[in-house]
């Protein structure tokens, strides 16, 4: 499907969650290269590193120490060279208000953190496939909104 691996950046302070994602990405059909950061500050430092290869998709935990996912989201959307990154928020919250709020701030995807591995794999497959369609079929990224549970 893709000649080059898809670059995924994952920001999460919980080590178990990071491992969970890492294992899931290893099992999806599309080739991916996953990089991890542990909190919001580290994420922004990483993204601001000069000449860095920006991720194709950023998975962002809403609830992180030092700088929350939402603060990062707002900052990224305000930064010219970062604002086109596809952002997938994931969180344990399923409050309608939180969800709409993050979409309004510019998130493309909202994922309710699943508790089992197969659901996570299914979600990741769906995100990656849809992202690829948006990439290759001239779809308008401004209208790319997806909520998964």
């Amino acid at each position, binding site marked *: 499907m893709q000649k080059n691996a898809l670059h995924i950046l994952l920001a999460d302070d919980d080590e178990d969650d990071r491992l969970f994602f890492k294992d899931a990405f290893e099992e999806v059909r599309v080739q991916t290269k996953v990089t991890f950061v542990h909190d919001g500050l580290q994420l922004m430092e990483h993204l601001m590193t000069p000449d860095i290869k920006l991720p194709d998709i950023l998975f962002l935990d809403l609830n992180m120490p030092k700088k929350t996912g939402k603060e990062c989201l707002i900052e990224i959307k305000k930064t010219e060279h970062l604002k086109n990154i596809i952002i997938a928020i994931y969180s344990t919250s399923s409050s309608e208000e939180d969800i709409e709020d993050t979409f309004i701030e510019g998130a493309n995807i909202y994922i309710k953190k699943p508790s089992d591995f197969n659901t996570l794999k299914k979600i990741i*497959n769906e995100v990656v*496939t849809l992202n690829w369609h948006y990439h290759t079929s001239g779809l*308008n990224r401004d209208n790319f909104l997806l909520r998964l549970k």
Partner: protein
Amino acid sequence: MKLFIKFDINTICSLFLKEKLEEENLNFSTLGFGEIELDENLDIEGLDNLKSKLAPFGFEVVENQKSVLVQKIKDAIIELVYMDDNNNFKSSVFLAEKLNHSYGYLSNVFSEVTYSSIENFIILQKIERAKQLMLVNEMSLTEIAFLLNYSSVAHLSTQFKNTTGITPSAFQRIIKKRRENLK
């Protein structure tokens, strides 16, 4: 002042591609569907050069035959979805006739290359068109359901929700607030 601009991606891409190929002094004819016939045979170096000139603009020279077919399927689906009087077409018949392969074959190749089905891609495109009609043409869901051949507004709403996870009205609300935020 705020202007909404409607554009045709096909025209833009064709014009742009033409300009780039002329810049490279290549003689060519277009065969439609993103297919181009060059008058001369490029060597590997020439082809790589062309690829690198086109790549920054999102153009990719497709080499694998199956990928070529998938791109043709996608283009045909987009054509079908954006046709305003497609009442008489069944998508499987339309694709099979247009591309001269059985639908079963097309469907297998599509799934093999994209890991998703033709049916899903058609729904995705229809929902994208619905989004566009909602935002740019400010059409009501009833009008959109009629234009896109849904049996009812409820059917369109359900498919919208199943595809995007959010309802059409939430989608409209989110995009509207986003635009207000940008002001």
